[in-house]
């Protein structure tokens, strides 16, 4: 009897709750259709009209509210990325100029793609989103989750002078679909083409009486010399010596080496077909570059544990700062970043006044040049999820943040606090404290349409570039800048519309690529071919081949020759 009663009770409880769930379902349906009206169901370029009495002279009559993504880099001793001197400046400015309230939403820098995915999937993404991953945007656009910007950038062109001036047609329409005309994102502008450079310890070279390497062979000899003389260079820490440090992200952290093996006269078509992976896994020549790394690894010249430390781990940085690392390849300004906490500043404090990393160009290609393949003038991609119900206010934000005055202030801050003006007129960045600390170099996390110093005046910018790294020797920055700008091969825009095979596989393929690289670096030399081919096969079967096929097919459809016009 009791059992039966229990059953009845439970059953009714269940029915009730399921009924409740059903209600939830229908609500979801409604909200789904609301967002549809903004995105997928509307014809290309349609905009949500804002009537004249709501929007007068570039200003809303009632205060609007938008949320904006900002990267959280989790720096030791950094300021709160959503609330500091710079966010105050932006919030105040937007409220005064456009009557728009701005709220920042932080997203961890090193897992940004995953985080954005989660936010988009749950419908809680900020109104203005920023990511480096276009495939992520494309995937959501295909599902109707992204606002089409094509109408906004043209219809409100007169309200967006700074955006058009700064990005221009090139960056605004970079991703416009050639067939449908949809525009899911605008590309931020890369003010500098500098990408990756190799650094070596100048003081070690001096101690051993070596010259800075200018060829692969000299570089290898240098690494061997570091390794052999570990006890001279490091004393009791000799066993901690890492002659050449490469992380799990081999494709980035040996980029200059890899690029030196690629045919500098590669056709645009071949480069594009293999170009989905920006770490150049399938480009011609990459295999030989990794074979060389494999040789070095087996000679004990690389960091043994590199594959065990994932993205965002700071162990490797600490080895560099502590002075155990002889050479490494990284972003052109890596040892100068973060002022007093930069790698070079740490080296000087912990190791000695003469300890420093200097940039070198030492990986020659088959023509004897130091060709570096860099991307086009594009950087992050800015997009609005379809949950954005203030598209115009958000466009105005992009315009505001592209104003040269505002970029300048965000990059250099206040005189006497974050920068000083030198006699030459150059602007030198100073190490700031508290609220004025910039979490990212020159606040690129706030200047979402601009990456790289841009003071509104080209001369001043060039003059100041070397002085923007507080607590670092401008001469070293200048050297790195020069080397990073040598023999560039700048990427071109191959706009053939969305490549369907690219949707949703970006992250899987990045992981596959890293596995292919890492395994090939650490295997025994006689097994190298086998391991490398297995890694490539794995990459291709996981979607890499489909992308290459579709890219080749689309190329043939739009271009008649193997080179771009």
């Amino acid at each position, binding site marked *: 009897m009791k059992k039966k009663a229990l059953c009845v*009770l439970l059953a009714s409880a269940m029915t009730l*709750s399921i009924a409740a769930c059903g209600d939830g379902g229908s609500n979801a349906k409604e909200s789904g259709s609301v967002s549809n009206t903004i995105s997928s169901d509307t014809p290309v370029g349609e905009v949500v009209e804002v009537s004249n009495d709501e929007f007068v002279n570039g200003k809303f009559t009632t205060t609007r509210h938008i949320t904006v993504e900002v990267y959280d880099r989790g720096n030791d001793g950094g300021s709160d990325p959503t609330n500091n001197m710079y966010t105050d400046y932006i919030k105040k400015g937007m409220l005064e100029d456009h009557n728009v309230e701005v709220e920042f939403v932080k997203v961890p820098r090193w897992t940004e793609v995953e985080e954005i995915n989660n936010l988009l999937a749950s419908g809680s993404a900020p109104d203005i989103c920023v990511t480096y991953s276009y495939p992520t945007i494309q995937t959501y656009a295909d599902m109707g989750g992204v606002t089409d910007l094509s109408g906004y950038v043209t219809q409100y062109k007169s309200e967006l002078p700074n955006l058009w001036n700064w990005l221009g047609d090139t960056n605004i329409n970079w991703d416009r679909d050639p067939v449908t005309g949809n525009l899911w994102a605008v590309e931020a502008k890369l003010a500098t083409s500098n990408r990756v450079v190799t650094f070596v310890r100048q003081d070690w070279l001096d101690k051993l009486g070596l010259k800075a390497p200018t060829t692969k062979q000299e570089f290898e000899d240098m690494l061997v010399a570091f390794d052999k003389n570990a006890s001279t260079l490091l004393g009791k820490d000799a*066993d901690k010596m890492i002659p050449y440090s490469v992380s799990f992200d081999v494709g980035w952290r040996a980029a200059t080496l890899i690029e030196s093996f690629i045919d500098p006269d590669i056709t645009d078509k071949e480069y594009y077909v293999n170009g989905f992976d920006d770490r150049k896994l399938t480009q011609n020549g990459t295999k030989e570059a990794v074979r060389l790394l494999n040789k070095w690894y087996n000679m004990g010249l690389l960091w*043994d544990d590199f594959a065990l430390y994932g993205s965002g781990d700071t162990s490797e940085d600490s080895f560099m700062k502590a002075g155990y690392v002889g050479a490494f390849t990284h972003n052109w300004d890596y040892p100068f970043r973060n002022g007093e906490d930069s790698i070079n500043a740490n080296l000087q404090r912990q190791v000695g006044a003469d300890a420093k990393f200097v940039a070198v160009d030492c990986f020659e290609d088959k023509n004897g040049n130091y060709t570096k393949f860099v991307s086009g003038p594009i950087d992050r991609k800015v997009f609005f999820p379809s949950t954005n119900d203030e598209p115009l206010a958000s466009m105005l934000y992009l315009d505001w943040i592209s104003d040269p005055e505002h970029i300048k202030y965000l990059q250099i801050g206040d005189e006497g606090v974050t920068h000083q003006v030198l006699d030459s007129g150059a602007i030198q960045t100073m190490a700031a404290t508290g609220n004025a600390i910039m979490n990212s170099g020159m606040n690129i996390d706030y200047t979402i349409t601009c990456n790289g110093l841009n003071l509104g005046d080209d001369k001043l910018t060039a003059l100041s570039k070397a002085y923007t790294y507080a607590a670092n020797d401008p001469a070293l920055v200048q050297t790195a800048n020069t080397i990073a700008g040598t023999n560039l091969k700048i990427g071109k825009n191959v706009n053939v519309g969305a490549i369907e095979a690219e*949707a949703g596989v970006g992250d899987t393929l990045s992981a596959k690529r890293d596995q292919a690289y890492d395994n090939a670096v650490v295997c025994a030399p006689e097994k190298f071919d086998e391991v490398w081919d297995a890694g490539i096969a794995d990459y291709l079967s*996981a979607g890499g081949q489909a992308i290459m096929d579709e890219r080749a097919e689309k190329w043939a459809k739009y271009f008649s020759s193997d080179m771009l016009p």
Partner: protein
Amino acid sequence: MNRTAEKKEKTPKSWANTGNYLKRYWQLYALLALPMIYLVVFKYAPMVYIQIAFKKYSIVKSIWTQPLAKNFGFEYFIKAFSNNDFRYALKNTIVLNLLDLFFGFPAPILFALILNELCFKKFKRVVQTIAYMPHFLSWVIIYSLALQLLAPNAGLVNMVIKKMGFEAIPFLNDAFHWVGTYISFGVWQNFGWGSIVYLAAIAGINPELYEAASVDGAGRFRKIWHITLPGIKPTIVILLIMNLGNILGGGFDRPFAFQNNLVMKVADVIATYVYRVGIKGLQFSLTTAVGLFQSVVGVFFLLMANWISRKMGERGIW
């Protein structure tokens, strides 16, 4: 439930009885309601979304209006089984879970038996507490410990090995060694906590049995073999069933924390595959299909183990 009350009214006659019964025991049901609501909201309601596995998923459309996937909705199941990564993940899940079962299941039983034989109460308590502790550490922390100890270059253990003139052992960066490390840490983390249930079961054995055995001249091992082990057999069987039900399951944190690029071939399991491909790669339908497959197989194992245990004359879980 109240057993005596149940005996008294074995045959129900009218709704009046039910009313009376509810009046008397409604507090118990009110208490039961909370966990029931939890189960319904967090375990049953989400099941509505299982249909994503059979549909072409879109974040903006309601699941009821999403179109059916190709091949009568089985597109994603076909896709999963023709995918190399999924097959690796499936194989790894089974292999790692079987190894876990093989090494990890007997460990707490042995530990409980050993603890039970200790005469120094204080020592026993201290050992017990120390053995429990790892259970409360998250896998991320355990992995950082492992990295500090076992990394080939900077790990303490390998430093000692190298100082003694041997080659560093690639505990974490070679497939074979990695599996050993992974399983060992699993056993280490869980054996103390797992032994609690057995200790409780051992405590429930009638001490007179031991006295009688002593009188008959049974030694320590005889007593363990003939009294303690049979005494905790039902507990062992129940736990074994529950473990078998989990053979395709298993946690996410442990493999995720321990994985690195060099061992993915053996370290990628279904949970991490689903996370990588589904959440990070946005292929929600595919991974829901994988998750559904995983659950169905899990239920199958559970039913089978339960059936076997009942055939063997033990109590099942139902």
